[in-house]
Structure formats: structure tokens, C-alpha cells
């Protein structure tokens, strides 16, 4: 397909942001449910909680796989620099994702208490660590990492564990836990629902505190992210929408309008990523201390030919994906009822 004068690099910057936002909204609540898992006691309750994400978590994780693939294809230099530079952190992320995935499958296969305890723990820690490490990686990319003239990472594993990225990691956990607790409220009833009534507001407040601290930290350690907002004040509208969404989550949960709370939570997740993306553009990986070595949508991109082939693929594929993803959510709508086929 010929896309004329369309700026393909910017288009792919947006599309990758969309894929990662899709991942955060969808697998975000899976990771959040995982984070809450150990707080819920009782085998039946835990099983119910696990089955709120049972039919959908796998499809949700595909957003990350596709996001990674799209990054590889559209901006191979970013993929190469970040993945090789963050080597050990990413290996840990993989191990966390592996344990999260297999624990869901394994957990209810045996009656033994020890067996279930082990996989419950691995499900929960895997989810927590996945959320944290994704946040840390993201925080590093946004705050800037040392790159050489060839765009290779010159830091070490410990470079990644600076205060700001760690705060982003904690905020990710908080965000996902809030999001997951509200999702789980929608999908459950009975005792586990009552427990979540208690946990959801706590998760929300945990997020609000983290978010406030992170905002301050951003002004201190990553002020370049807010520069564009300073020069184009209308962009603050997005920040206001974000704040209103978060405030609305608090309000709707108080009124027990879980659907409205969940929708607001989705908006909050999307807005947070949108604000980050706008703050980053046109950089994909910021180099600090040498900003001239940053990887941008121009110097890190594939050829125009590849970007346009991929856009064609995406334009054909995405409607299909949205079509069957929504039908799956429709088929599995309503509260979870455990049956023989459940996890």
C-alpha cells in the first residue's frame, strides 16, 4: 500500500505506544490480580480470583509479544540497544513471566496444599516482579541511559537500579494492582468480592501516593519529560484528564459503581502512557549524559519500505485482533463461576 506523504516514523511511534498501552490496560489487570493473589486466603477464593483472568491472560500477553516484535521491526536499533543493554534485567523479566504463565496452568492441577502454595506464590511473585521490571525498564528509557556514539548501552546492571526507575517500577506495581483489583471486583461475587472491597481502596490509595511522589520525582530527575508540556501548555489538558480519571476511580469505587471505576482506571493507564510518549517524542531511548547519542524515530528506524509494509500488515491485522478479542471478552462476560474446565 502507498501511504503518500504520511510520516511513517511518527505513525510507528504512535502504533508502538498503542501496543504497549494495550498491553498495560489488558495484561496490566492480570498482573494486578497476581499481585493481590496472596492477600486473598482460602483455596476457593484464590481459584476464583485466578479464573477471573483464566481465559484472557494469554491473549493479553500477546500484546507484549507483538509490541516487542513491532519494536524489532520498526526500530531495530532500539530493540537491539535496550534488550542487550538491559540483559540481566530482561532475563529476570522472562523468568518472572514464565513463572506467572506456568503457575496459572499448574496451580489447580493437584489438590495438595503445598503444591498450590508453591504455585500461588510463584504466580504472585512472577506478576509482581514482571510489573516492577517492566516499570524499571520503562523508567530507564524515559529518564535516559548512557549510550555511546554507536548507540550501545555503556552502563551496567546497577545503572538500571537508580532511584527514579525504581520509583517508576513501584508505581507500575501500584497502577496494575489498582487496575487489577477493580477488574476482579467486576468479575467476582461472594466472599472474595467482599475481600476485594477492602483491598481495592487500599490499592487505589497506594497508587495515588506513588503517583504523586513520581510526579515530583519527574520534575527533579527527568525534567526533560515535562519540557514539551511547558512549551505547549494545551498539552496539560491530558494531565488534567489523567488526574480527573484517577479522581473518578476513587469516587466510583466509593459509590460501588465498579464498571465506571474500571473504565476510569483504563483511561488513567492510557493517559499515563500517552503523557510519557508525548514527553519522549521524537526520542525512543534518551541518552544521558550525551543527549546527541539518543535513539530517535529517525536514526533508529527501519527503511520506509519496511515501515509501510508493516503498516499494511497492521491495518489488515488490527481490526481482526480487535474483533476476536472483543468477542472472547463477550463470551466470557459476567461473574466467574468455577466449573470442571476452570483453572
Amino acid at each position: 500500500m502507498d501511504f503518500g506523504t504520511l510520516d511513517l516514523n511518527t505513525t510507528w511511534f504512535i502504533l508502538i505506544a498503542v501496543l504497549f498501552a494495550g498491553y498495560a490496560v489488558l495484561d496490566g489487570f492480570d498482573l494486578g490480580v497476581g499481585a493481590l493473589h496472596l492477600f486473598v486466603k482460602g483455596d476457593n477464593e484464590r481459584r476464583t480470583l485466578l479464573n477471573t483472568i483464566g481465559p484472557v491472560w494469554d491473549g493479553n500477553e500477546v500484546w507484549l509479544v507483538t509490541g516487542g516484535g513491532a519494536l524489532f521491526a520498526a526500530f531495530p536499533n532500539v530493540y537491539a540497544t535496550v534488550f542487550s543493554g538491559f540483559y540481566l534485567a530482561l532475563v529476570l523479566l522472562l523468568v518472572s513471566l514464565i513463572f506467572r504463565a506456568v503457575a496459572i496452568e499448574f496451580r489447580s492441577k493437584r489438590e495438595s496444599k503445598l503444591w498450590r502454595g508453591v504455585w500461588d506464590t510463584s504466580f504472585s511473585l512472577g506478576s509482581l516482579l514482571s510489573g516492577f521490571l517492566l516499570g524499571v525498564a520503562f523508567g530507564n528509557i524515559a529518564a535516559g541511559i548512557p549510550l555511546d556514539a554507536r548507540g550501545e548501552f555503556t552502563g551496567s546492571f546497577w545503572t538500571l537500579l537508580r532511584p527514579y526507575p525504581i520509583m517508576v517500577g513501584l508505581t507500575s506495581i501500584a497502577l496494575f494492582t489498582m487496575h487489577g483489583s477493580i477488574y476482579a471486583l467486576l468479575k467476582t461475587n461472594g466472599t472474595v468480592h467482599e475481600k476485594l472491597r477492602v483491598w481495592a481502596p487500599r490499592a487505589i490509595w497506594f497508587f495515588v501516593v506513588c503517583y504523586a511522589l513520581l510526579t515530583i520525582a519527574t520534575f527533579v530527575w527527568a525534567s526533560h519529560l515535562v519540557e514539551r508540556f511547558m512549551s505547549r501548555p494545551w498539552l496539560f489538558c491530558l494531565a488534567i484528564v489523567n488526574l480527573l480519571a484517577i479522581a473518578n476511580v476513587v469516587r466510583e469505587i466509593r459509590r460501588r459503581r465498579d464498571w465506571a471505576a474500571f473504565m476510569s482506571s483504563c483511561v488513567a493507564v492510557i493517559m499515563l502512557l500517552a503523557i510519557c510518549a508525548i514527553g519522549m517524542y521524537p526520542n525512543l531511548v534518551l541518552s544521558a549524559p550525551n543527549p546527541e547519542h539518543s535513539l530517535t524515530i529517525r536514526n533508529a528506524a527501519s527503511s520506509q519500505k519496511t515501515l509501510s509494509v508493516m503498516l499494511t500488515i497492521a491495518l489488515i491485522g488490527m481490526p481482526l485482533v480487535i474483533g476476536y478479542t472483543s468477542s472472547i471478552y463477550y463470551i466470557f462476560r459476567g461473574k466467574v463461576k468455577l466449573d470442571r474446565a476452570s483453572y
Partner: protein
Amino acid sequence: MDAIGLSRVQFALTAAFHYLYPPMSIGLGLLLVFIEAAWLKTGNALYHQMARFWTRVFGLIFAMGVATGIVMEFEFGTNWAAYSRFVGDVFGSALAAEGIFAFFLESGFLAVLLFGWDKVSRTFHFVSTCMVCLGAHFSAIWIVVANSWMQTPAGFHIVGEGASARAEITDFWAMVFNPSSIDRLFHTLCGAWQAGAFLVISVSAWYLLKRKHMDFARAAIRIALPVALVGSLLQLFSGHISAQGVAKNQPVKLAAFEGLYDTTSNAPLRMFGWVDEKSESVIGPAIPSLLSVLAHNDPSKPVTGLREAAPDPKDRPPVNMTFQFFHLMVAVGFGLIFISVLGLYHMRRGSLADNRWLLWLLVISVLGPHIANQAGWFAAEVGRQPWIVQGLLRTSDAVSPVLKADAVIASIFLFTAVYLLLFAVFIYLLNDKIQHGPDESDLVPTGKLARG
């Protein structure tokens, strides 16, 4: 070992472990389509019971495939950053297409397959099973296309020089239909169908041996054995086509398959043997002229040897290793044809259940496709060395420049420990499901299914 050698070890380890599962998903997916079709057509509850049982096994295998598959996608970047920069423009679109067209389809409908029994109609469940099967096959397409491009690159040009050189796509369809992709896709899929069919055969034969679930086992084996035979015969055919492609496009690899050093007409085919790479010779019983016939359909045509195709030994793969993997794959491939013919013969005569030695053979036959699949991939990938992208990029230039050997050692230990644990749990749970057997209650369809 340095970061290059270690990264190769890690990639081989994680890829080989991952590749235990996708072939079973693809093959079992196909069998589930047949099983559910039989149920739709006949209404016989036995097929419902069979679909339920094998769906549970499918779920377990699929979960392992997903968990180990995401490692593969990340590893291109973590360990092979220079490679990723070089091929990203060409290879990335295939990987992205795999995500969009295959994984979403597969994982979405898997939910219905596993959990939708009481929520959707029979027909819709059948359609979902078909979609999962289709998605699994799609995922094979894109990854084999990408790998084939590394064997026989096409539809690209090189931009830049030295370390910053990279391949850029010029013709998408030429990249997709590069000279080896169709042959190798067909070969890969046949191997996957065999893996699925022999899994079902093995478990069913076990039940027949133990005289448990006899009707269930007989009915399953009646579906799986023909698939196994067709798959194995097609595999022989596709293997032949693939080898002719290798002879044409990758003469060094073909020479390594056979340990052929001198360019020879009436080149013989070794049944088995040993290559001495120092003295550049090979020993072992051979069938005269057969290699020439297989490679060029003509006994008098010469087959290019290593001394001509790669005069510098540095440009050759480890010959004996390639030879052994290749011959192992071929030997097992013939064995599987033999086993499925024998099984079908006795099934037709009705003497299968009384033939204990044959049933034992069928039980262990499940290992066959896995050995052949693994050996085949090792032959294909080791045989391409020292190149990671044939003729364009050497494996030694492909590794991440910032990667330290000790980091790779740490990750190898971690992956090995995790994978050993997962494999133990997988085998334990699989055995548990097999010992438990099909659920008697599945003979009565419940929920929406009861209403047809």
C-alpha cells in the same frame, strides 16, 4: 568460552527446549479438529470425551509453549543485538506478522477451546478449534519464513558498510517466498503433524496395553494412525524436496550432511558413518550414486564437495556434527514410516490390541518425531555455520557487543534450572493426566452442548 560461544549454547538450549511444544500444539491442534469433526458428524459422545481429554493435554502443552516462546523473541535482542540491527528491517516484519496474525488468533480462540465448553454451541466450539489450529499453523509460517530467509536470503539489498551495514527489504513477497521457505515450511509442518499424531498413538497404545479405556483408545488410534502415516510419507517427500533445495542453494550444507569432501559424480549416499574432519574423510556403508540421484535426479551429475564449495576450512560447518544430526533425522523418519505402516496393518486386521510388542513400540514412538525434529533443526542450523545469515553475516559478528560472558553464564544457569524444573513438572502433570484417563462424565455432554 566467550560471549559468542555462550550465547550460542544458550540459544540452542532455549530453542531446543521451546521446540518440544509448538510441534505438539500444531499436530494435536489438527487432531482436535478431526476429533471434533467426527463428533459433530456422528454425535457419538465418545468423540466428545476424546475432545475433552485431549483439550486438557493441549492446554498444558500450549502453556509450556507460550512460557518458553517469549524467551525466543527477547533473545534476538539480548544476545544477538548486532544480528538484530542487521536483519531487523527484513526479519522484523515477519515477526510482527506472526504476532498479529498468528498469536492473537491462537490465544483468543484457545480460551473458547479450553473454557468455552458450556458457553458456546458445538459448531462454534468446533470453529474455535479450527481457529486455534489455524493460528498454530500460521505461527509456523512466519517463523519458518524468517529462518528460511537466513538460509536463502532474497528480496533485499545491503545498505551501509562494515559494522553499520544492514539488509533492507526491496521486495516483501520475494522475502516471504525466498527459495527455501515453502519447502522448509512443508517439512516443518509434517514434523509437527507427526509429533501430534504419535503423541495420541502413544497414549492410546498405553491404554490398550493396560486394558483400560479400550473404546476410547481404539477410536483415538483410528484417527491418529492414518494421520501419522500420511504425515510420515509426506515428510519423506518434503525431505527430498528440501534436500534438493539445499543442494542447489546451500551446497556447503549438503556436502556436510553427507561428509562429502570431493566433488563427485555418482556420489554415494551413506547409510550411517563417521566423518574424520582432520583427514577429511568419511567412513560408513554407502549406496552408490544415490546422493547424485537424490540431489539432481541423475546419477551421473556431480555433487559439489566441501573442498570446492568451501575451500577454506574456516567457511565450513562442524562437518561430523552436521552429518550425525542429519543421518539421525533421516533414520528416525524412516523408522516412523515403518511403525505407522505396521500399526495400520494390525489395526485393519483387528490384531492391534493383542500385539504387546507392537503396542510397546507405539508407546515409545512418541519420542520419534521429537528426536527427528530436534536433529533436523540442529542439522539445519549447525550446517549453516559459520554464517548466521548465509553468505551475509557471520555468527561471530552477530552477538551483542556489550554482552559480557559472565552475564550469559548467569542466564544459562538460570534458564537451565528453570527449564529443568518446568520439564519435571510438565512430565509429572502429563503423566498424571494420562494415568487419570478420560472422564466418564464426559460421555454425557453438559450445558449448552447437551442441546446440540
